[in-house]
């Protein structure tokens, strides 16, 4: 399932910003249905880099290490709810600058 979610995420990212409005509801609906099935998908784009955040696997570009931010997300974070417990099933793969 996480591969399917990653593909959905990739499709979403391939749509040009100016065209996105017409797909927005479809993606909202897909993520809503995924949530009903227990999958929570988090896109960490633009979040500040946090070395404590184990839900992302970061590739850090800026060697100064100052004010680092996530500038690109190759894979989203996916959690799965199972019997009331949420567990991380996919770490986001991100680029940090």
């Amino acid at each position, binding site marked *: 399932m996480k591969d399917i979610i990653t593909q959905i995420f990739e499709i979403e990212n391939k749509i040009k910003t100016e065209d996105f409005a017409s797909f927005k*509801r479809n993606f909202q609906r897909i993520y809503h249905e995924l949530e009903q099935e227990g999958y*929570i998908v988090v896109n960490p784009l633009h979040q500040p880099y946090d*070395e404590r*955040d*184990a839900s992302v696997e970061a590739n850090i570009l800026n060697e100064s290490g100052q004010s680092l931010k996530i500038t690109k997300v*190759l894979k989203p974070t996916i959690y799965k709810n199972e019997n009331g417990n949420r*567990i*991380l099933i996919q770490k986001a793969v991100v680029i940090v600058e």
Partner: protein
Amino acid sequence: MENINFGIDLGTTNSGIGKFQSGKVNIFKNPVGFRDTLPSVIAYRNGRILVGDKARELTSVQPENVFSSFKRKMGSEFSYHVPATQENKTAIDFSALVLKELINFVGDEKPTSAVITIPASFDTIQSNATKSAGYSAGLQEVLLLQEPIAACLAYANTQNISIDESKKWLVYDFGGGTFDVALVSINNRELKVIDHEGNNFLGGLDIDNLILEHLFCPILEKELGTDNLWKQMVSAEKGIYSKLFFELLYRAEEAKKELSIKESVYVELELELASKFIEFEITRQQFNELIHPKVEETVKLTKRLLEKNNVSNQQVERIILVGGTTYIPYVKEYLHQEFESTVDSSIDPTTAIIVGASYYAGTKTKQNLSTEKAEIKEEVPDQLRDVKLVYEVNSQDNEELLTGFVPNEFSGYYRVTRTDGGFDSGLISFHSKFNEFLKLVPKTSNFFHVKIFNKHQVLVFEQDNLSINHGIYNISGQPLPNDICLEVDDTLGTTYLERIFKKNDILPLSKKIYKTVSKTILKDSGAQLIINIVEGKAETSPASNLCIGYLEINASDLSANLLKGTDIEIDFEISESRDLTVNVFIDAINLEISQVFNASAKQVSIPKVRLELEKSLNNIDYEIEEFSINNRHEIVDRLNDLRLEIIELLKALIDIEDDLVTDKIYNIDERKRKAFQLYDDLVRRKNVIAEIEEYQAYKAEIKEDLLLKPNAKIEHVFNNIIKNEAQFLNSNQTSIIRSKTKELQKISHEMYYQHDESYVNLFYQYAYKEISDYSNESVARKHISNGERAIKNENYIELKAIISALYHLLKIKPKDYFEDKNGTLGLK
């Protein structure tokens, strides 16, 4: 005597821990990130000690504070300087941190003894250094096992291969960063490493780089109109292609994994610099040619190992594979081609060493090794009491502050992790008090695990399930006094309430739901789609609740026919001042309606009230009859009163038909709600119980039938129906329970018609109908007479055909009981 049972692979690049339990090995997953292995990397950043994945990713940012591959320095005098803490550390110190982290993977019963694996090349000093690291990590007993032996044990045990006979195996270990090959002799259950070879700088990462340099770069150079792209990407000077390098490395690793199962893959890349996406194909053939020199290098080392030990290819009975790079099919194919031995890849090569170490640990009994580790033995520390943890239970922020207070001038370390594996504070030193901002997953409950360690990093306090809710409750808002519900159609022609917001949920609130159209509404047909939002109790009848939002979408408002089954998206928002905003969107006909309902203005529709009253009269008549039969006269009297009240209300409705000025309609609505509440009190409980009983009866019947005549398909459907049984049986909603009963009836019906004899009954139902019901009486008579003959001859195939023919001759076709009824509201 108790066995050691715990096995640890303390690797150069990755480490892991397992336990031998009831004849098999269980690999413990990292509670942070849930992976089987832990990168053997330590980093110091912002006062924290990080171990594993998060430490590794800091390599490029602050390499001076990140330490990896320290295993290569085990047993040496080498000392690492840590600028962040101004301390000097040894490979033993770092290895101990990795071991502590691995011990942390294990739940409650922490190991006191363990088997730790070491490379075949380790000498006595290096071996003793590994033992010291184990003791520093809190183990009281450490047994060492050579990695190739561990791998052999893993294969032999999982496949029940005999190790009694004399034979030789090759352990081919091709990992992420290193390559090792060992020749192992097996004789009478004794395993011994004869010799080994290796290259410390040859691994899977080299292959990823090769893909990038030789398969990706030539294509990209054309797209980007540049030369020497590889050199530009990896040069020390960070340029415009540095970011691209990381993305390509990720794609290369993905392509490598995919090529292990497919003959070709398409690689898709976003070229931000050229503002486009490109796509190209890589075949397994290209990939194999590319990696051939690397695999050849490992083969040369392996051949050299055999030659120097005078062992021929034929003498190698089996080559066993270890390390993630051996997933690549070409590695296996090429080894088989070169050595003509069995190449065994039957177990997961990334965890083989852990599995082998654990099997070994499962055969070794614990010793009382007080002498060996006496010098570092510590007394069991007292657990801390009076630790105070202060935090907000509800938060709207992305992070929430946790403050911990420990009395008596305590100095030590703390660590906070989120139980979903997405947050880890790392190990941080503190004195008396600590503050940590905890990162929250939005709109859900977050559970944290807090641990406090003494200055020797021994656990002295632990608290599970510290819970912080994000965005679920707004602490400043008012609670909802009642449920807020949407009235929806069921499949039986009646309606019920679906709860949108729960009583005591805190305002403001918002929620998006998706429903479907339950009846076709043809444009210009005069029909309407009704959205009725009520406040009250979800488990009561819709008409007994207060309407707070009422929206009619008329057929004339539609741009096209609205077909049954079309999706409807409805957004609900209730502000702090309790204004309700409803936004309805129907994508299929591109209709969007938004309406705000003010809390002070009541919403009453005369036609809807009339419909509710009229429908209720039938129900009351039915209930009066039921209670009369059971001699419940007091209830019959009250129902009769109720009946009169409803007739009065219907009359009153006629009187105010054209009255748009007075508020008589609100009075009628109030009386109607009271009447329905009374009706609910009198009969609803009884009806719910009756529905549950009927449901249980069908369930028991189907269970019994399935036992006598198992049917996997029906059993699957059956299990799906009863899956959330506790929830719907406790819903107090007759129509929900009845819908479930109907689904059970449907499969019961299906099971009944699996027996050919059932068609005899069905045939007689048709045979006993009035002959005038058929459009052609003589043909019908002929069919009936043929049917009787077919029954006599037990020719059920013919009988089924005759029943079908009779059905088609019927002037009025019987209604399908199981067909979903159209709704009255149009929303399901």
